[in-house]
């Protein structure tokens, strides 16, 4: 009995620390930030174009925002390799859908598909935060935000990425009117009702602020604007509607086209 007891005791005194494993880490963080805001009949999806790893800027222009269909735009942020490959798979699924059903997938269906695709890799996740923006079947502007394993919800606005903590409280204040009250007797604030010009300047302010205070944000930004069917574009294309330094282009329809229009606005950000 004494022997029996001694044996495990002696064993327990051996060094039990495992060798220092240099296990391959399949993830990286490539910085940057994304943001989306929904309006009544439009949706704005934006991201900066810097890609970094640690203190190194890998490139000053890498995309994070992608046009999926005529009424859906997806922004990805986190591990860039996962982001790019996730977008590639989403686009492939959308193509298959169109072949099978002879129509593009609707926004809320894309959102649900993204959730299943993300959860499908629950135990080796895509290290990516996704924000999906676009126009819903009923013509309303919509934003869906996701966590890396697929939890999602529809919201009026969302910021994600390196500067999420800088931008989101600002958006709470300016989009959701948090901690603000209307003057007595005036109309109540309704989130998601702001005019396009206001939303655009909030997006620009968010990114210039984040650029100022966060080293991983900067270089440039791309703002995608998805307009609902038959919506006027005067508040975007009209004389003097864009801020200084902005360049705009209209992205052609991807499919048959049902009247939604997508515009891409680019603007430089500080490079330091």
């Amino acid at each position, binding site marked *: 009995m004494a022997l029996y007891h001694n044996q495990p005791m002696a064993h327990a005194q*051996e060094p039990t*620390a495992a*060798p*220092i494993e240099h296990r*391959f880490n399949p993830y*990286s963080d490539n910085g940057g930030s994304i943001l989306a805001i929904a309006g009544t009949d439009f949706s704005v999806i934006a991201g900066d174009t810097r890609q970094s790893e640690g203190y*190194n800027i890998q490139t000053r222009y*890498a995309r994070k925002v992608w046009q999926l269909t005529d009424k859906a735009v997806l922004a990805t942020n986190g591990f*860039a390799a996962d982001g790019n*490959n996730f977008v590639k798979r989403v686009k492939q699924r959308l193509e298959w859908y169109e072949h099978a059903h002879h129509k593009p997938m609707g926004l809320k269906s894309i959102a649900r598909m993204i959730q299943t695709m993300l959860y499908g890799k629950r135990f080796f996740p895509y290290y990516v935060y996704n924000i999906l923006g676009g126009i819903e079947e009923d013509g309303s502007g919509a934003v869906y935000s996701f966590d890396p394993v697929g939890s999602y919800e529809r919201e009026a606005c969302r910021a994600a990425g390196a500067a999420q903590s800088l931008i989101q409280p600002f958006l709470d204040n300016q989009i959701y009117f948090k901690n603000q009250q209307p003057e007595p007797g005036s109309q109540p604030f309704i989130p998601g009702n702001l005019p396009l010009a206001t939303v655009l300047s909030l997006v620009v302010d968010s990114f210039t602020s984040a650029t100022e205070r966060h080293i991983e944000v900067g270089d440039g930004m791309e703002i995608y604007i998805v307009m609902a069917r038959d919506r006027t574009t005067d508040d975007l294309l009209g004389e003097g509607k864009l801020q200084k330094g902005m360049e705009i282009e209209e992205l052609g329809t991807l499919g048959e086209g049902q009247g939604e229009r997508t515009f891409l606005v680019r603007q430089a950000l500080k490079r330091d």
Partner: protein
Amino acid sequence: MMSQHPATWGQPTPANSSFNQFNTFPLPQTQRGQSSHAHHGPVGHTQQPLVTGTSVLGLKYDGGVMIAADNLASYGSLARFRDIQRLHPLGQHTLLGVAGDMSDFQWLKKELDALLREEDALALTDSHPSLSPKNIYELLSNLFYARRSKMNPVWNAVLVGGWDKVKKESFLAYVDLLGTTYTAPTLATGFGAHLAQPLLREAYEAKAGIDGNGPLLTKEEAEKVLEDCMKVLFYRDARSLNKYQIATITSEGVDISDSKSADTYWKFAEGLRGYGAQTQ
């Protein structure tokens, strides 16, 4: 005693392994850490780079793109192979510059050369277009990402330089063991990202401007900048060699230079205590 084996570099060597201190060949059973346990779990794919190449530089210029890499393949801190070519042409208009594990690089060469032979054969028989730099880059990106997703990475960082015959413009892009990809008018891997990239960007932006709309560097200017960068790397990167090649990719095709050296200056060293001859 400090271990010289790449797997345990810089760690103190275990007391019972006083022989073969400077393992000059890979020993599969080399002890990792100081544990007496031989338990490493189930045999995994995970590897580590053994024989490695250091920085690769890339720079777009007027009429093409240049890639530079030195001729060294290191074994840990040992300058093991000093005449290795790390620039590899693929077809008429594409070239890889490879850093990282050299055996993975050789495997990669074999695979890609085989693929290109098939493609060449196809291109002879019908109107099958030859692989563009972008095609090859896409393939590499998918390969690297697929392998990292299997937790069996191809342990390299690769610059792909090329000339797009259709768009009539140069091509320069990066892909690494994580499947991370990006493009830029100037690129550098490893130490080069710290030491050479700022010099490359400065030279590029001095003429082209920050938006790249101005005139590009001439061939001569680009070559001068790359030679300066290779010299800086040789001075400060302990795993580099003053023997390197520069590849030039234009509409004319790929040209890989003979190995060359930068003119270096070491006079200052004589005045440094502990470096030059001791005078007291």
